[in-house]
């Protein structure tokens, strides 16, 4: 094999290995969302159970956690106790909000009756709110600071450590 071919081949292989190496170092659940650093899309959605409307604007000045979930999502069952425990722990400083999409109210109420509830759960009709936030699958969680700016997003079921680490960014 002549030198130029060997050189080009080595350069291409090195570039591919470098890209692979960088990619493997990323946590697929810590998604770099284009929404991070932007104001959270405004919404006013109906609360499951009470039928009242909760307007996100009313939560200004309070760090907020918006958790998108559904009763048909198995990882959401795993995450639910983590959310409840932390909502009880940080309830005075942080507002937790659940947004359920592609689901029906009866199933949500049954889920909350059986598994408990510690924060408002809102119904996202036709998934419009989820789309505006760039939600692909559930659960996905957005952390908003006091100004309503999205400071972090986590995809997948959160552990307490993950939740609290992201929460720190919102409280800062």
């Amino acid at each position, binding site marked *: 094999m002549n030198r130029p071919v060997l050189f080009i081949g080595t350069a291409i292989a090195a570039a591919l290995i470098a890209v692979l190496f960088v990619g493997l170092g990323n946590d697929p659940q810590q998604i770099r*969302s284009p929404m991070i650093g932007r104001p959270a899309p405004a919404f006013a*959605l109906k609360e499951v159970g009470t*039928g009242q*409307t909760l*307007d996100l604007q009313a939560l200004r000045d309070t760090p907020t956690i918006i958790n998108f979930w559904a009763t048909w999502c198995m990882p959401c069952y795993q995450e639910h106790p983590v959310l409840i425990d932390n909502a009880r722990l940080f309830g005075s400083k942080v507002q937790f909000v659940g947004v359920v999409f*592609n689901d029906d109210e009866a199933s949500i109420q049954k889920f909350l009756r059986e598994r408990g509830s510690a924060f408002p759960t809102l119904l996202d009709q*036709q998934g419009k709110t*989820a789309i505006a*936030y760039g939600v692909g*699958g559930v659960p996905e969680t957005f952390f908003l600071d006091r100004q309503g700016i999205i400071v972090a997003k986590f995809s997948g079921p959160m552990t307490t450590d993950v939740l609290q680490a992201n929460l720190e960014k919102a409280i800062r």
Partner: protein
Amino acid sequence: MILLLIALLQVKAPDAAQFVGAPHGVALQGAALERRTMEVASLLRCPVCQGMSVADSPSTVALDMKAQVRELLARGYTEEQILSYFERSYGEFVLLKPKFRGVNALVWVLPLLALLIGVVLVSMKLRKLELVDGD
């Protein structure tokens, strides 16, 4: 009942107007609306599928996205505005056809570059062989 109605009237999902402004196009309806919905949805990637477009995917997220595309076209939003709206939320990942800019440009340039290098290498090799044969 009245309280329920008031509550429902207050319900407000995020609207495209918040992000891409007022519609720039003509409101579509009927067969034209359905045709354009499929055309625009075929340019969007289903976020939970493997390389499938929103037009082709049966997933609930894709169906919601397609319904939103239809609604926006019916309100007069243009293809460019609709793609911008989805790109704003999901990032450039949601566009099935990457834009010719930044690192994405490599997707278009690299195959041409590889082809060019191949042609040069093959012609160099052929020339060398011709020289050897000539001797």
